[in-house]
């Protein structure tokens, strides 16, 4: 039978605030266990949560970016369950009235077409702590630093019809929240977590099949692998005449399989009710206005602007805007003197190659965009050849200063004095009579030999265009 895949995603983005959603505790990553957990986070009797203003602003800016219905009122609710990483016995979340309502996000498909994915809602909630299960003699260790960290949970409609679409949507959400500056997007540290709901149905059938929820998809690669495994598992079940059980399954990257988590039948009875400790949140025009003003240029707009302002191909523009940081880097290279098309190549090939080789991120690049711009300016004005530019780049990478300083110190300045080039060429022609004869007899390929000799003599500094022109003139004459 032909099966159709149906996928919906829940994305938890950790909001990039300084303090927690309901308390003034720091959310900095990597602190000693429980040093960032105050009595509000710990749920001591008598404490009152107070909502962080930045969290509201960030949710609003996201809502605007996906053209969502917003406000005017949203309500926090208690989601009740017992687990030691949540000492209050409930998580403060939103249920009936989330801060961000229906919106949508357009993804690019492989065939170049686009598809709008519906977003059901995005709501604010507090994160839970971490349980450590190893090495405590039958006990679990609890670190509550993460408790109360602000999350925006973005829930999609079951609109995705393939694993590729699901990965593409997840990447687009990731790109968007990083562009908006509301999430650092660090998946290793858990700042961006994806849960996926997957079901299958025979092609043409309208009713959805029974879905399973996959957790622990902490990279796009794992997400794709987990969905692939789960898709095959469901097809095998149904084609073997068995049924899919609605349950939560955990992805195990080491074994590349999904496993059923303990039945959460009871745990799913969350008994939501409005949190009496928190008043309804009212969104006023002033806040919306502020969010509109703080809205940065979004990836799709940036891509269009790059195409028109810098005359870039759509493929180049798309590659550059993959990350906001890279796009910003590119623009600084151009504004510091680099030609746009050369800048694309240097940023996405030379620099990216060097970064990958060193295993570091663009933010840690030892070469600044201003330095790259300065280098490109020296290529454009013929001070150095493109070939020597790589040598200059390497020196800049090693901290030997910017392009002009390196060119000066290493004596890499291109020779553009035709008289000087001519003298060198005359000498080479005189020293290689046999090759000259062969060239004149029609062995054109030997031009390369002569160019090579000139470059050897000048340590690659002779202007290649001039060398070619003068050589040809002399050899043919």
């Amino acid at each position: 039978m032909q099966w159709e895949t149906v996928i919906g995603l829940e994305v938890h983005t950790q909001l990039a605030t300084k303090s927690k959603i309901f308390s003034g505790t720091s959310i900095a990553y990597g602190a000693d266990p429980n040093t960032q957990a105050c009595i509000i986070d710990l749920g001591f009797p008598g404490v009152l949560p107070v909502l962080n203003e930045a969290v509201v602003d960030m949710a609003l800016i996201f809502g605007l970016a996906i053209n969502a219905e917003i406000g005017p009122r949203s309500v926090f609710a208690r989601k009740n369950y017992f687990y030691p990483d949540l000492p209050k016995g409930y998580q403060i979340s939103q249920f009936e009235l989330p801060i961000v309502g229906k919106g949508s996000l357009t993804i690019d498909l492989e065939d170049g077409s686009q598809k709008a994915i519906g977003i059901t809602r995005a709501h604010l909630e507090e994160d839970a702590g971490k349980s450590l299960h190893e090495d405590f003699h039958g006990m679990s260790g609890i670190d509550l630093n993460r408790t109360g960290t602000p999350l925006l949970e973005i829930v999609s409609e079951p609109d995705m019809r393939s694993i590729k679409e699901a990965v593409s949507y997840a990447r687009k959400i990731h790109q968007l929240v990083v562009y908006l500056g509301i999430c650092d997007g660090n998946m290793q540290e858990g700042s961006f977590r994806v849960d996926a709901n997957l079901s299958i149905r025979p092609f043409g059938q309208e009713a959805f099949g029974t879905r399973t929820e996959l957790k622990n998809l902490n990279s796009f690669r794992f997400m794709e692998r987990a969905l692939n495994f789960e898709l095959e598992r469901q097809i095998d079940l149904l084609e073997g005449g068995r049924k899919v059980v609605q349950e939560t399954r955990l992805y195990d990257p080491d074994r590349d399989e999904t496993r059923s988590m303990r039945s959460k039948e009871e745990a799913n009875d969350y008994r939501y009710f409005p949190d009496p400790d928190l008043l309804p949140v009212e969104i006023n025009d002033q806040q919306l206005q502020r969010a509109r003003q703080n809205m940065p240029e979004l990836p799709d707009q940036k891509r269009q602007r790059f195409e028109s302002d810098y005359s870039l191909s759509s493929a180049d523009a798309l590659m550059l805007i993959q990350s906001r940081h890279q796009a910003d880097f590119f623009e600084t290279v151009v504004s510091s003197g680099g030609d746009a098309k050369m800048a694309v190549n240097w940023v996405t090939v030379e620099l990216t190659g060097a970064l990958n080789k060193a295993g570091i991120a663009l933010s840690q690049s030892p070469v600044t965009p201003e330095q790259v711009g300065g280098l490109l300016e020296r290529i454009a004005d013929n001070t150095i050849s493109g070939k020597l530019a790589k040598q200059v780049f390497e020196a800049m990478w090693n901290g030997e200063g910017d392009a002009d300083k390196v060119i000066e110190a290493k004596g890499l300045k291109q020779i553009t004095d035709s008289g000087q080039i001519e003298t060198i060429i005359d000498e080479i022609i005189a020293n290689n009579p046999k090759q000259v004869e062969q060239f004149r007899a029609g062995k054109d390929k030997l031009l390369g030999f002569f160019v090579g000799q000139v470059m050897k003599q000048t340590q690659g500094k002779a202007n290649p265009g001039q060398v070619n022109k003068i050589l040809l003139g002399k050899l043919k004459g």
Partner: protein
Amino acid sequence: MSLDHSDVKKIAHLARMALDESQVDAYAEDLSKILGLVEQLEAAETHAIEPMSHPLHMAQRLRVDEVTEKDCRDENQAIAPSVVNGLYLVPKVIE
């Protein structure tokens, strides 16, 4: 609406309350009476009334995003039954 024996046991379990078997029926009766009271409210005409999520007619005040809390781990952990390397220890929970 009334609650039976098994409803009460389930609710007690969700709330992690230890309930003596002999208490269950009494609770079932009490809780059912409370639900009965709520049912009476359903007779009220509420069509034009916006649902209320809080009895106060006020909006939530917001806090500036600043770190104001200090590390109070030692004080907080002084009342914990068991602590190792800064972690609270609890009976093993694993999915």
